[in-house]
């Protein structure tokens, strides 16, 4: 399959997953929010569905990566990966969502808040890549 077509198809699967979670459980499929809920003390039934969603995500996603023969690592060095991870964890919790919560789900709900979030993180990510690749000059 052409990579653009598999991207479109994969995107539809993600959107269907988010629709299923909303239709069945009434929940938003925002990965950062679901993970954050796991690190908070809460009622056990609140914890169980989150753990199940993340387990399904990791097992099926990890297996599919191997079937499809993709295991490309990030070009970033270990110190950069640590800084990047800290920023992603801190930022998504402060901003109340990531690419899935604000992007796939928020835009699907026509949320202005999510539209602002998506524009901000996309712009900053483009800027971040520009600085790394074209100013500092590290190119993978």
């Amino acid at each position, binding site marked *: 399959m052409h990579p653009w077509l598999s991207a479109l198809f*994969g995107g539809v699967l993600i*959107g269907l997953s988010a629709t299923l979670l909303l239709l069945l459980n009434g929940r938003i499929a925002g990965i950062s929010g679901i993970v954050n809920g796991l690190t908070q003390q809460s009622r056990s039934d609140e914890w169980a569905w989150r753990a199940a969603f993340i387990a399904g995500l990791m097992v099926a*996603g990890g297996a599919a990566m191997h079937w499809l023969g993709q295991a490309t690592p990030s070009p970033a060095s270990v110190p950069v990966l640590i*800084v990047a991870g800290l920023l992603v964890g801190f930022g998504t919790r402060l901003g109340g969502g990531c690419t899935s919560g604000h992007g796939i789900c928020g835009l699907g709900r026509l949320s202005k808040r999510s539209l602002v979030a998506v524009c901000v*993180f996309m712009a900053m990510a483009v800027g971040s*890549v520009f600085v790394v690749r074209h100013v500092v000059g590290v190119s993978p």
Partner: protein
Amino acid sequence: MKRVVSALLAGALFGLGLAVARMTDPTVILGFLDLFGRFDPSLAFVMIGGVGATLIGFRFALGRAHPLLDSDFHVPTVKAIDRPLVVGSAIFGIGWGLAGYCPGPALVALAGGVSTAFVFVPAMIAGSLIQRFVFQRRAGV
């Protein structure tokens, strides 16, 4: 129990979608974000497919009185475009551009045994816990 099974299935579908769309490959993400290099439009197609599905699916789901397995929808009610939203999203964007990982694909890559995810994911969880700690101290909780 039904809600746990449905969450497991939804999660599996989400993970499959991420892998099929190659969002678990940071070079695909960075290729999209690199507007001034060798541009890779894949992420735009993922968003078109994903948001296209939620635009239709969410309208259908939210048109119901309640979800099939719960008595209420648990959707965000906050509408304010405030400083935490903008600052948090900006910080997230910088980190995303540095490594090419956002939370979902990073977790899948970890399960797939990709070395860089083993460094990124613990740092990501630490960052989230630091935010909670800082915020709770400031709020005086």
